[in-house]
């Protein structure tokens, strides 16, 4: 992800008569904090605002819609500053281009990294439209007011619409530092505005990757090595070619055989009877038990320090320790993997439900032997992402199969393919210890995280032995006199990927279960214990971020109050609580359960978030509810196990997501704030599992120290 340099961050790129087009630059997580880069080189926008002469306001952005509402939330931010009439605003999906800056969608970053540039672009266009009206009327700018999609002569009902002003505005200079609105004056931001993409999603008209069609397009499925890292030794396609509609069977890369047919069913039938001999390679004896033994043994190995305060080695007190363990997990988005590609000699076009259009473009180009600018990637709707579509594998496969058959093709992964050939949340092992003083308060706290590195496995640079994702996802937000957070990086042949909340799930689970254990050891209420450790207003510096104990205290108090913490519960009901900060947001959850036949039944989850300024309270509630349900599956049942080098789980029978009957009611609350917005897609995931396990302790006095709970 190379940094894009630019002269400024706004620029007009209008063609005469086409209306007003303002190009601007949206940074992603990798350039978060220094979004404006080198000030001496060429302006290279990756987003556009278009105002057409007929009054349409179009926000063009290459961020992928995977359910999180970017197609609504991002235009809202811009429309607010523009003083637009929301009814005229629409979103247009941009695809990958070599001209654009980073277009990755992930890290709960779409709003938090676009907040400033989106506002400035809208404000700049607003100022230009006001200037255009002032010139049109021959009056000072101060006598003009922008409101509801028009500029008005102040105090009158005489106005000119933005569409009518667009061409003239396009001839004016772009203000570099337009004034921004005060939060108290917001009319669009913060409101529960209905999502723009909802109607198409209830009629079946929404086009996901799997729904994309080209004329004469074939369908393909792949036979892949069942053993991780295995290769094709040989294959016999005699039976496959007898299946009606099968037109091609061939090796693609070292590790897969493609079966191409007129329909998905034909391709699946062709694969069913395909005879492949595999070279299993070095991992044929790999199994989960050995992987966990390896993690546990590595706990005594060399660690790097992520965070340190005081000196935990020089403290004596009552010693408490515990170890926790989490399995590999799979994203399992509802839309299985797929991409469509059309290779035509010196160019290739791809349609993909992807979070990383540029990575798809570059990787496909490399695989095809083309230059990146000979590959065009279009982003379809994503049927869930959760991080799975941060991989480029589907797109590259489609490109290679298209090249092999010299025609358009859609490669589809079946559910079993998705489950068995995924990139998994890393398994991890956690060793925690603490020293308590006479009152039971922790005077030393150590958390050693043992896990393989996602970025390390993918070959990204690892500075100082620290996986870069841990810098955004593992803060220890308590006032502790002596504390140490350590990381031991391990290796695994099991493919790893970023899954919703990434390492925050593992770190939050271990940390928040252990805090609960300390509260129990001290004989104190778990909420009071946490609040005591957050009582002092403290800024906690963790890598580049500063976390505030006051904000964590705020979400804990809000969640506890809304959940009725400490108040009488129905007979047999128990509550657990946990809090965690990640992706710059603070989240607390209270889980209410009863135990039925030794298993927890979750009745109610109350969550409270502090994510700064809320952009759309409707989408926020969706994201918090969705994160909690996703996390409940993770906590109860989600585990990918390895046996003889193969992923054991294959479909929703043995990797069983939460269904309606198990889904608790989820109440979502937020702290009112005018701080800059922070992530909401992922922060609701980490507190759920520890709050649930802490509730189980309240019910049973037994600790759950390994996920999944129902293993």
């Amino acid at each position, binding site marked *: 992800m190379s940094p894009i340099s630019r002269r400024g961050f706004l620029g007009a790129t209008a063609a005469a008569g086409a209306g007003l087009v303002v190009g601007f630059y949206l940074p992603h997580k990798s350039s978060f904090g220094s979004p404006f880069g080198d000030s001496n080189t060429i302006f290279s926008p990756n987003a556009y605002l278009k105002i057409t002469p007929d009054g349409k306001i179009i926000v063009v952005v290459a961020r992928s819609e995977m359910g999180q509402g970017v197609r609504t939330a991002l235009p809202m931010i811009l429309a607010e500053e523009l003083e637009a009439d929301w009814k005229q605003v629409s979103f247009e999906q941009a695809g990958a281009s070599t001209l654009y800056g980073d277009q990755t969608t992930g890290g709960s970053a779409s709003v938090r990294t676009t907040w400033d540039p989106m506002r400035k672009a809208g404000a700049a266009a607003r100022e230009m439209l006001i200037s255009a009206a002032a010139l049109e009327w021959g009056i000072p700018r101060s006598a003009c007011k922008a409101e509801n999609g028009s500029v008005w002569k102040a105090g009158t009902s005489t106005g000119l619409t933005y569409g009518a002003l667009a061409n003239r505005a396009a001839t004016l200079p772009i203000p570099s530092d337009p004034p921004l609105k005060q939060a108290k004056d917001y009319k669009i931001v913060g409101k529960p505005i209905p999502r723009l993409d909802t*109607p198409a999603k209830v009629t079946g008209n929404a086009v996901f990757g799997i729904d994309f069609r080209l004329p004469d397009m074939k369908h393909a499925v792949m036979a892949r090595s069942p053993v991780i890292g295995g290769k094709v030794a040989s294959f016999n396609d005699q039976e496959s070619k007898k299946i009606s509609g099968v037109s091609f069977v061939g090796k693609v890369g070292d590790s897969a055989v493609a079966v191409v047919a007129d329909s998905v069913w034909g391709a699946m039938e062709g694969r069913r009877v395909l005879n492949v001999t595999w070279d299993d390679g070095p991992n044929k004896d790999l199994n989960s038990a050995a992987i966990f033994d390896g993690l546990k043994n590595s706990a005594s190995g060399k660690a790097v320090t992520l965070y340190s305060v005081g000196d935990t080695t020089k403290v004596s007190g009552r010693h408490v320790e515990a170890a926790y363990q989490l399995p590999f997990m799979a994203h399992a988005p509802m839309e299985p993997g797929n991409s469509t590609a059309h290779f035509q000699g010196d160019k290739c076009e791809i349609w993909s439900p992807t979070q990383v259009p540029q990575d798809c473009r570059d990787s496909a180009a490399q695989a095809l032997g083309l230059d990146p600018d000979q590959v065009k990637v279009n982003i379809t709707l994503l049927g869930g992402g959760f991080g799975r579509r941060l991989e480029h594998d589907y797109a590259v496969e489609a490109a290679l199969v298209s090249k092999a058959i010299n025609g358009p093709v859609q490669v589809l992964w079946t559910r079993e393919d998705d489950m068995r050939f995924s990139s998994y949340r890393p398994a991890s092992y956690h060793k925690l210890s603490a020293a308590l003083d006479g009152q039971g308060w922790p005077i030393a706290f150590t958390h050693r995280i043992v896990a393989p590195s996602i970025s390390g496995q993918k070959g990204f640079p690892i500075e100082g032995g620290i996986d870069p994702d841990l810098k955004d996802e593992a803060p220890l937000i308590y006032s502790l006199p002596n504390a140490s957070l350590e990381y031991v990086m391990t290796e695994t042949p099991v493919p790893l990927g970023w899954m919703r909340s990434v390492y925050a799930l593992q770190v939050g689970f271990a940390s928040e279960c252990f805090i609960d254990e300390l509260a129990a050891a001290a004989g104190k209420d778990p909420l009071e214990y946490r609040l005591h450790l957050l009582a002092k207003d403290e800024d906690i510096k963790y890598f580049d971020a500063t976390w505030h104990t006051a904000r964590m205290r705020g979400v804990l108090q809000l969640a506890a109050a809304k959940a009725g913490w400490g108040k009488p519960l129905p007979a047999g009901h128990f509550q657990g609580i946990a809090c965690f900060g990640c992706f710059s947001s603070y989240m607390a959850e209270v889980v209410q359960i009863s135990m039925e036949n030794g298993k927890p039944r979750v009745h109610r989850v109350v969550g409270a978030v502090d994510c700064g300024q809320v952009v759309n309270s409707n989408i926020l509630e969706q994201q918090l509810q969705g994160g909690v349900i996703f996390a409940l599956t993770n906590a109860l049942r989600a585990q990918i196990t390895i046996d003889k080098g193969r992923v054991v789980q294959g479909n929703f029978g043995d990797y069983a997501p939460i269904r309606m009957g198990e889904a608790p009611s989820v109440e979502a609350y937020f702290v009112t704030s005018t701080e800059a917005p922070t992530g909401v897609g992922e922060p609701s995931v980490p507190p759920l599992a520890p709050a649930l396990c802490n509730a189980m302790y309240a019910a049973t006095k037994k600790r759950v120290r390994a996920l999944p709970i129902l293993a």
Partner: protein
Amino acid sequence: MADITLKINGADRKVNVSPETPLLWVLRDTLQMTGTKFGCGIGSCGACTVHLEGSAVRSCLTPASDAAGKNITTIEGLAASGLHPVQQAWIAEEVPQCGYCQTGQIMSAVALLAKNPQPSEDQISQGMSGNICRCGTYDRIRRAIHRAAGASTKQGAQ
């Protein structure tokens, strides 16, 4: 291969497919009706739900030959014109997130309400148990079903 006539959304559609081809793939690949989704292929997730003679079935497990001659309804034909009341309820409650499973959820909800116009909470849980949503929209699905049930009561009273 066999010539099969499928009665889909009130219209006869002639297709030439292997008789065992699941209805899902006939809809999606032969007839280009992509509102019905593939999720698991084993009848576990409900993304492929359609109605056969008014009952919700998993089209990924329904051979085309079994559906021949029967009334098949898909999301595309749920309402004769405009939106079905259940689709309207889905919009009013802003149910979808990614939206991929929602057409299947809606087909299950319509079938549930046809059999039981005023379902209890438990009956909703039971009736919708065959549909998985990874975005976790269950709270809002429940609200939308109650909303649609209320709407049908009002219509019934008129």
